[in-house]
């Protein structure tokens, strides 16, 4: 099952759990499942996060396909100078 890694801000929705195993074939599906289990968290991840998958940060990861052994790191969106 994919593992969702949450930043500490997100953990208030999960009772402090930092890593959650969630079913889902895309990052969007993972977010939807997290929202179902922890109402509010999914919206937060959609609005305030990018996702790091296999060492690559994706800015709009909703449709990104993932395999069952994927680690998905939700990280703050980046800008640059």
């Amino acid at each position: 099952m994919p593992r969702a890694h949450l930043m500490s801000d997100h953990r208030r929705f999960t009772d402090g759990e930092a890593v959650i195993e969630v079913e889902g074939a895309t990052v969007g599906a993972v977010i939807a499942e997290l929202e179902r289990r922890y109402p509010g968290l999914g919206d937060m991840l959609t609005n305030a996060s990018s996702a790091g998958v296999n060492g690559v940060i994706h800015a709009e990861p909703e449709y990104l396909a993932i395999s069952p052994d994927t680690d998905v790191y939700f990280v703050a969106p980046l800008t640059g100078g």
Partner: protein
Amino acid sequence: MTVTEDRPNYKWVGTRPIRPDGYDKVVGKARFAADLNLPGQLHAAILRSPHGHARVLSIDTTAAEAMPGVKAVVTSADFPELDASNPERDVAENLMARGVVLYVGHALAAVAASTKAEAAAAVAAIEVEYELLPVVLSLDESMAEGAPLVNEHNVTMFVESDGPSNLATVNALERGDVDAAFEAADLVVEREFETAWVHQGYIEPHACVVDVGLDGKADIWASSQGHFRVRSQTAAVLGWDTARVKVTPAEIGGGFGGKTTIYLEPVAVRLSEKSGRPVKIVMSREEVLRATGPAPASKARVRIAATNDGELTAIEGWLGYAVGCTNDMAGFIGAMSVASYKFPNLKLEATASLTNTPKSAAYRAPSAPQAAFAIESVIDEIAQQLDMDPIELRLKNAVVEGDPTAMGMPHPRIGFVECLEAIRESDHYRSPVPEGAARGIGTGFWFNIGEQSSATVNLNEDGTATVITGSPDIGGSRASMALMAAEELGIDVHRITPVVADTESVGFTDVTEGSRATFATGMAVVNACRELIDELKARAATILGVDADAVDWLDGEAVADGKDPLSLAAITAKAKGTGGPLTVTASLNAGGAGPSFAVHCCDLAVDEETGQVTILGYTAAQDAGTAIHPSYVEGQMQGGTVQGIGWALNEEYIYDDEGSMENASFLDYRVPVASDLPMIGTIIVEVPNPAHPYGVRGVGETGIVPPMATIANAISRATSVRMTSLPMSPPKILAALDDR
């Protein structure tokens, strides 16, 4: 000097041809935004608030409208009010205050007139009634219990809102057991730091020329890091369809992040609409300093635990950023830029708070320099206390591929260790420290970003090529695009013309920021070239009468067994008969931007009677992945370094009690001059980024991150005084020496 891992033997990548746009720039022909003039053009001037925070009770423009030469006047009443959910609302309210002015310099009204003098005179005739509101200027004031609200529209981002707040963002990162680690530590060093507001300091003030036609379409020529963003923001602020706005990129005279947002274009659009004439707006230097994006001032509290043999076991800290009058991501990113060391235990909080000062903007590796100043200073102090070589301490703790970043995700292939080793082995570091001087080390890194880019490659009839992209060329990116295309196509780089096209002539491309142009736009160029080569092989197969899969592409020629090779020019010459023009457009959303690390080494002397610092020698090593055009990689490293030296030593915004900047000129906002500096030695480290076809990482951001701590660390070794407040100007250093 270059330190390179094994890599293919490139013919063009890594060479140093003259940049194609350079000729126009050395003879004065290059057209920057302020150099453009249209027939019948008007000049605009902007009325700016003299108050740091005030309600605008009334604006009376009748006298101004009657002034000689005046053709149009606009205020916020001429713009739609965007609702709170619109992501460009802050941009809209920054470029024309609606009801409340939030800082000294906030635009309130604008006038277009026949001459600059007439526009300025009319602006002075606009009458405004203000009701003064409390001014919040510092981070401490902003965060204080019961502090007055800076901006009644602000709510804290990404948390459930309980109404307006001065808090912009809060971001916390945590792993391991920090308390236990500090308990067990042999050595703990804790320090507090502060840094001042600094400006990007590009030499070209913001400028644009706008012509709105009777068809209702706006033609905009602008100086920006991304003309597609100028288009989207302008359309959003005006409530227009994007298709009504065309933006042509003028040459841009420096940006460093400060030209990733807009200040003028929608104002010029409305003035042009109202007057029926083209309108030009050019900011003065004073306006640039008072009303465009400085980088946040900051405070930090950092505590690091270490063992006696130099293992860094824990970090705990708070980073606070003052971000100006509207919300900003600075604090969010700041906490994440702490990722250079393994730190098994980590607890960091970063907050951003509003102040009645200009809306801050990105500045090279936004928010990382402030964090690195604090952390690299504390780490150096640990090295001093343990009597360890500062590079050895860092090598012992440096992250490598697979180690977690601050937010947990493992680092991809990175070159931090290689940079540390490059400095350790450098002539500079191996040379004795000059008499009367001291040597400091500091490091830094930046993630870099990918984002969307498009490129069109046209092969011309004679085998020359045109490479069209949408990334404004700030520092030689045209040359890099041409080099990558030459490498792919196998033709001479001088047969390639790189072009930066307007928003109607090339596919969407995100702003040039986060060191992404050579990385992401370069990747689009490479993809387009590779598709073209497939097509060239197919055409060659037709010409040669062989199967398509019997053709290979080698060194700019199609080769097939038993046939004479066909040059690219030989194929393009027969394009018409083999299927028509050879042109390919590639677009992508690039992932896999590779973090770039840097390690700096500085020799300096401190005049202990005046507090003046003289930089005697400086060497920067940075991981470029692959340097496409090494001269411009070195240039990015040197430029970022010198901006960092300015940030370290003398640059700062000085505000009076009302929030008016007292030093809004290049006389007193002191950017480094040539005589302040030695040569800046560079070591390009090349640890290729596996996610890019040539291994590019992007080099623009990182150079500015290490200098502040590098210099503070050298000062500490020169004087035994630990400087914790930027800038480390002579009066501050002398005061610290006296307190020693």
